[in-house]
């Protein structure tokens, strides 16, 4: 009687564990498929031409060029620009929600902010085209407002919920003793936040920002719609840019499958994958450390 029962348990456990291996399998196959296609591009394009070349012009007659430096710069500009906007706004909102707001207000505001995360990026891109870019063009006297600044603002809106909700979780999960000890020493509430809570939650907050960064680097649709998509090397935030994600989205449907151009786009995908993987891995390690420190 005991044996078939044990046997059944074993089978069930095995099946659950094999199913959960699927996630790992997907991650590995994404990497392999990007790698085997992307790496072929480097049989004909040298690594330095690819990473350090300024000009991406794969369809040029005679001599196509394959430099992705301006695309990388575009991606970095959006990442930096959106973080400059989203970090102060997000952090301030998180502090407000966890330390200052009355519970009833928090109950309404927090889900409202998290709902921004539910707005599809293509809708934000649309608003970027019809509302924000004319506004930016007007304010700065530009001929059109599809540029790095506009896309940074749109991406900042997209990563705001990530930064707010994770930082808020970090702050609320800090032990109550920290607050009590600080207040007992005569600190004002702001001094307590500045000198006790923020340093204690720092690594968690950094991780929240890193996750936001990962999203900013990988964001495609909104950026594709408002960045202007020029392949020229941008000189300022008022120039149109074309980040790596947008470049893949624009060109992938037009290329001949298996051509060098197709392989080069996969190589860009591989670069993106490695970049976001690194960012996520680092934030993961930081969060792990924070968890171990305070057991939240």
């Amino acid at each position, binding site marked *: 009687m005991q044996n078939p029962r044990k046997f059944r348990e074993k089978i069930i456990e095995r099946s659950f564990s094999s199913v959960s291996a699927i996630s790992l399998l997907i991650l590995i196959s994404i990497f392999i498929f990007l790698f085997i*296609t992307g790496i072929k591009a480097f049989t004909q394009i040298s690594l330095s031409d690819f990473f350090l070349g300024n000009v991406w012009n794969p369809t040029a007659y005679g001599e196509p060029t394959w430099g992705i430096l301006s695309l990388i710069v575009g991606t970095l500009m959006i990442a930096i620009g959106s973080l400059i906007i989203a970090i102060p706004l997000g952090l301030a909102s998180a502090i407000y929600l966890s330390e200052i*707001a009355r519970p009833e207000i928090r109950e309404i505001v927090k889900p409202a*902010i998290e709902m921004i995360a539910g707005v599809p990026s*293509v809708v934000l891109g649309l608003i970027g085209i019809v509302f924000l870019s004319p506004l930016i063009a007007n304010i700065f006297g530009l001929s059109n407002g599809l540029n790095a600044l506009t896309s940074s603002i749109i991406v900042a809106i997209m990563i705001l919920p990530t930064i707010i909700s994770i930082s808020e979780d970090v702050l609320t999960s800090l032990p109550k003793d920290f607050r009590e000890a600080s207040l007992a020493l005569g600190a004002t509430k702001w001094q307590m936040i500045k000198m006790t809570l923020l340093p204690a939650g720092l690594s968690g907050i950094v991780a929240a920002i890193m996750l936001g960064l990962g999203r900013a680097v990988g964001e*495609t649709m909104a950026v594709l719609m408002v960045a202007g998509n020029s392949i020229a090397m941008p000189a300022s935030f008022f120039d149109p840019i074309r980040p790596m994600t947008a470049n893949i989205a624009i060109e*992938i449907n037009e290329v001949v499958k298996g051509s060098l151009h197709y392989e080069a786009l996969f190589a860009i995908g591989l670069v993106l*994958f490695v970049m976001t993987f690194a960012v996520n891995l680092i934030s993961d390690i930081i969060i792990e450390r924070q968890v171990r420190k305070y057991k939240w």
Partner: protein
Amino acid sequence: MVTENIRQNTYFILFRIAAFLSVVILLFVLLYVIKEGIGVININFLTSMWSHRDITQGGIFPAIIGTILLAIGVSIISIPLGICTAIYLNEYAKENMFTRTIKLAIRNLAGVPSIVYGIFGMAFFVLFLNLGGSLIAASLTLGCMTLPWIITASEEALKSVPYSFREGSYALGATKWETVRKNVLPHSFSGMITGSILGVSRAMGETAPIIMVGATFFMGYLPTSPFDKFMALPYHLFILATQHSSPSAGEYAMGTALVLIALIFILNLGIFILRYNLRKRKEW
């Protein structure tokens, strides 16, 4: 002390403004889409086929159906896998290398850009498995993308079941699976399903991956098999907004955006209400 108080008040006012601004942005996005999009919404727009020649004559019915079919396809693929993975990780897994690797993989999958899922889907499902640009290839691609979200949501539901429920069951001599099936799943299943549907609703708005795996701007018929191409709301509005020459394309893009947001938010709101009612019934 007085200056400290002034400083504190200044900072707190700034923080309040920041939080207020974040909420205002959300409200603005919603109101703007409603204001600009409501004009084109009518029965014809919602229920008739897309007319390629004169967009003011046609509707987005096939795009709505395509998005709903896609959501169903994604659910069929990723919800069972996600729930089983969550059960394994939360109930069975021991702290070892295998578990740590799986958890790491899940967290990293959640951070892979959607466009990368798109080219992976194109290389693997469309070309390698030869599924072609189709509803099933798109469902599989978005299924991979939603899997980590669903696992996380389901794990949370499982964690909310008190540990004493499991101990009570073991004490009566039940095996692990009997415990999970009779004492854990009944209390967490609704939470897992609602959390998963939230994940799928996010996938409904994804555009970048489906461009490469089968979404199309114009189709004269509704998809009849999983191997057909399909129209989808997010892709439809993207083309209208960026590549369509008709003078009323902008207006119709907004209308499409409104329908998309409404679909997602109605789903979210329904789940919110359902969860609220379920939580009231729980007594621990």
